[in-house]
């Protein structure tokens, strides 16, 4: 069961990711990304992280991707043009990516034997546990996030507003 679910959603995630790359229109890419994120949410569930699965759907697929699609619409960005601006990206980038993948997977395969098997019956992290750590041990980063968000808002306002006098 776990294996089937994993395989299905892993495939979904990969397919979504590949589709993200193949689609020429940003909207389609965004939709593909949502597929990836949703698949990942399921995988999180499989890994016993139900809170994160929810957050993944709500924050990522919901809030962030909505923002993306909104901007795509706002700027009325059409299909990607076929440009060949970067030679380097191909000649240097692709070998590099291949190496990256090779190194990462080789490492994981080599280290994998030290890690166990995951099954559905493994415990699920409760939100209570989560919040205890979040609001106690990691109080400082949590508070810091507020500063981060503040900066983000501030920055977004500063950059995105029009500079023609009216504030």
């Amino acid at each position, binding site marked *: 069961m776990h294996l089937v679910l994993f395989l299905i959603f892993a495939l979904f995630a990969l397919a979504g990711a590949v589709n993200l790359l193949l689609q020429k229109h940003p909207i389609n890419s965004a939709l593909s990304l949502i597929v990836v994120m949703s698949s990942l949410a399921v995988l999180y569930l499989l890994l016993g992280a139900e809170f994160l699965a929810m957050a993944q759907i709500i924050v990522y697929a919901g809030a962030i991707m909505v923002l993306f699609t909104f901007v795509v619409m706002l700027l009325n960005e059409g299909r990607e043009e076929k440009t060949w601006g*970067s030679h*380097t*990206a191909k000649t240097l980038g692709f070998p590099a990516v291949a*190496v990256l993948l090779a190194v990462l997977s*080789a490492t994981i395969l080599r280290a994998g034997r030290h890690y166990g098997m995951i099954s559905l019956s493994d415990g699920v992290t409760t939100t209570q546990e989560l919040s205890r750590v979040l609001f106690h041990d990691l109080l400082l980063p949590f508070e810091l996030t507020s500063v981060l968000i503040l900066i983000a808002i501030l920055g977004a306002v500063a950059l995105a507003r029009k500079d023609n006098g009216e504030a």
Partner: protein
Amino acid sequence: MNDPMLFLPLIPLLPLLGFLLNGVLGSRLPKALVSAIALIFPLASFALVARAAWMVHTGLALPVVEHDAPAWIVSGAMHIGFGLALDQLTLVMLLVITGVGFLIHLYSVGYMEHEAGYWRYFAYLNLFLFFMTTLVLAANFLLMFVGWEGVGLASYLLIGFYIDRKSAGDAGKKAFVVNRVGDFGFLIAIFLLLANFGTLNFSEIAAHLATPAALSGGTITLICLCLLLGATGKSAQIPLYIWLPDAMEGPTPVSALIHAATMVTAGVYMIARAHALFDLSPTALMVVAVIGAATAFFAATVAMVQTDIKRVLAYSTISQLGYMFLACGVGAYSAAVFHLMTHAFFKALLFLAAGSVIHGLSGEQDMRRMGGLRKEMPVTFWTMTAAVLAISGFFPFAGFFSKDAILAAAFEQGAAGKALWTVGLITALLTSFYMFRLWYMTFMGQSRARGHAQHEHGHEHDHKQAHAHESPWIMLTPLVILAALSVGGGWVGMERFGAFLAPVTGKAANAGDAHVELMLSVLAVLVAATGWFVAHSLYARSESRGATESLAGPRRVLENKYWIDELYIACVVRPIEWIARYVLGWIGELVLVRGSAWLLAGIAGLCGEWLRRWQSGNLRSYAAWLAAAAAVLLIFVLAGTLLGVGGFAQTLSWAVR
């Protein structure tokens, strides 16, 4: 130490004082004062020398060496001081230098009266006396070298006295540089001496040489040849004589003093001074003799065709110096010095008389435009006649005695000596010929003056005097005195002179067979007479001068002085310039020095440009760079462990899990 109160340091220092006074203040002083300063200090020096001579005459033991002289250059064991020494040789030289020197100063007062740099001239002249007296008074080689270089400087300054005349500057430069070549030899000799003897003092070196464990012949020969190179430079011998004819660009009294009577004889003095060394090296002596004979002959041939009165005298000087070298070469040092002395008298006289002629003709130097001056300038004529007779070697003029001594000494030196003697005799013939040629062309016949000449005497003489005029008495007085010396200077006699010098120059040339000597003397006079006769037949009447035109070929060779100057330029000057300009300037400087720097900078620049090209501005390229860099970094970090590569995995043996 017995201090005979000779005040030796004052002899050079007094003229130096004159130089400083005139040199610094001269431009602001009235002419009379400048003259007074210029005359008083040499006169005082002369007085000191004369006093010393008198003291010697009355029994002062020579040599007198100053032992407590101040140190000059001290380094480790090397100690060179300002030591002065007076011995017989020095005394003779000093008498000539200060005596003749003073006379020429006196003459100059008249001769240079109208010149712009009057004060400068006398300053230089005093400077010359300072260095020349230093040269002969020096007790060591290095101090001698001071004087040696110093007289070169004074000569340079005086040759180039007419600063607006380019040829004068060229001549001065040439004189200095050619002399430097000789000085180079002298310097090397000094180093050799220093290295081998550890001292430069004449007396100490002589003491070293006297010991049985003296140096091997090779080193001595080398030292002698180096010294000889120096001597040929200063005394205008082959191969370095080329500067002297050009040096006639200077004012005529300078030619008389420096380029005839004193400075150019420094080489002879030096060889005589270092005779202890030369005596140990027959090879070196032979070279000296050959150089002397060759120079004597060679210069005499050139002198035969010169038309410039001063150039004739210049080549004559070279030739006469050759005699002195010849004498040194055959070991007759005292004869050489004797000839040096008499030569100083008559050659100074010749020059001064020539100067008087030039003065009288408002600067004309070309003999083809002279003639018939016998009447206009009687005093000059008669004094000149005395000098001509003296240089030609007529009895009983001074030249006869000294030249005779040299030829006799040569004759007694075996087969080689005979050959040298022959050359000397032929040279005597030529000497007599060219001197009388000069005499006839200048004083006899009709005047061929055309005016417009302002060769030496500059702008003051623009008011052309139609007739030549006799010089003022301030110029004639030295002429008369010198004429007297030219006539009677030789009566001292070689034997007495040689005996006087013997403590310095070693044994006098042992008198040979009296009959042979007499024969030789007679022969010499006959030869001189022959020269006179030839000159008379060719030049007594002006119209017959064309007779020599028949010998056009040799004449051209001689008139061009064998193209030696051109040869030097082509073989020495041009190659050096060529190498400097093209080999060093282009290959060395541009290619190697500049080029290497440019190359390095260029490589760095190209690398920079190449690196800059990475920065294409394209975001995706940048990402590619980052990805590639990340990949490389990961490989760097992980490859060793993943692939289990030997050494690397070992260092991180920890990481195999």
